[in-house]
């Protein structure tokens, strides 16, 4: 099997929110969660939620989400009957390809959406998921 992941369908409003967050935070990295459901063989992202980048020091190349914000995200998903599907973050002036730092702490199953932002605005968006061999494989965004 060449691709074991479900395709990702990101609703336009969710995609726009992630992109605008990337531009608002530029030249720093932004980060957030997105929620939705898996239905009929598709992972559907219904909306995204901005989260504070708590990384101390230079945020142009790093992001971090606090443990408390993570707990809140899980509780929010449970309360709303949604699934926490993954995390997005931006790569200012850098392609949307996961770095070693992204890989080092990646969890299985989550989708990792990366928004590449250039000086003129968002350049492209790609999504990745960890394989069973702990390597990132690209997901198809429908």
């Amino acid at each position, binding site marked *: 099997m060449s691709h074991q992941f479900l395709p990702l369908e990101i609703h336009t409003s969710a995609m726009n929110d992630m992109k605008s967050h990337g531009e608002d935070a530029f030249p720093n990295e932004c980060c957030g969660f997105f929620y939705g459901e898996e239905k009929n063989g598709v992972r559907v992202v219904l909306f995204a939620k901005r989260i504070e980048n708590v*990384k101390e020091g230079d945020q142009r*190349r*790093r992001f*971090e989400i606090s*443990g408390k914000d993570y707990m809140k995200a899980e509780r929010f998903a449970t309360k709303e009957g949604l699934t*926490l599907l993954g995390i997005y973050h931006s790569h200012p002036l850098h392609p949307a390809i996961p770095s070693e730092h992204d890989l080092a702490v*990646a969890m299985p*199953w989550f989708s990792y959406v990366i928004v590449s932002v250039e000086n003129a605005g968002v350049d492209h968006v790609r999504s990745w998921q960890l394989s069973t061999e702990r390597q990132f494989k690209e997901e198809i965004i429908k």
Partner: protein
Amino acid sequence: MATLIIPTPLRKFTDGKSVFEASASTVKGLLEALSTSHEGIQKHLFDDAGELRSFIRVYVGDEDINELEGAETKIEDRDEVSIIPAIAGGSK
């Protein structure tokens, strides 16, 4: 029984369940009980030396166990323990 909250990305090892309950006196005991009863989850929680992986945080209630006694933090019945994956990264 203490309650352990399983984060979404690890629920594929718990048949989709978000909660695991077991009797244990420490955080480590509770995590080991989870690992014993759910095959495949252990490697995501512990390294080869049996230490908690650096990208896994554990909270008892709203407190990070790193601010308490680490994996040896004592727990009581009705405590809610959460496994929290570290969410971080960056472009370079």
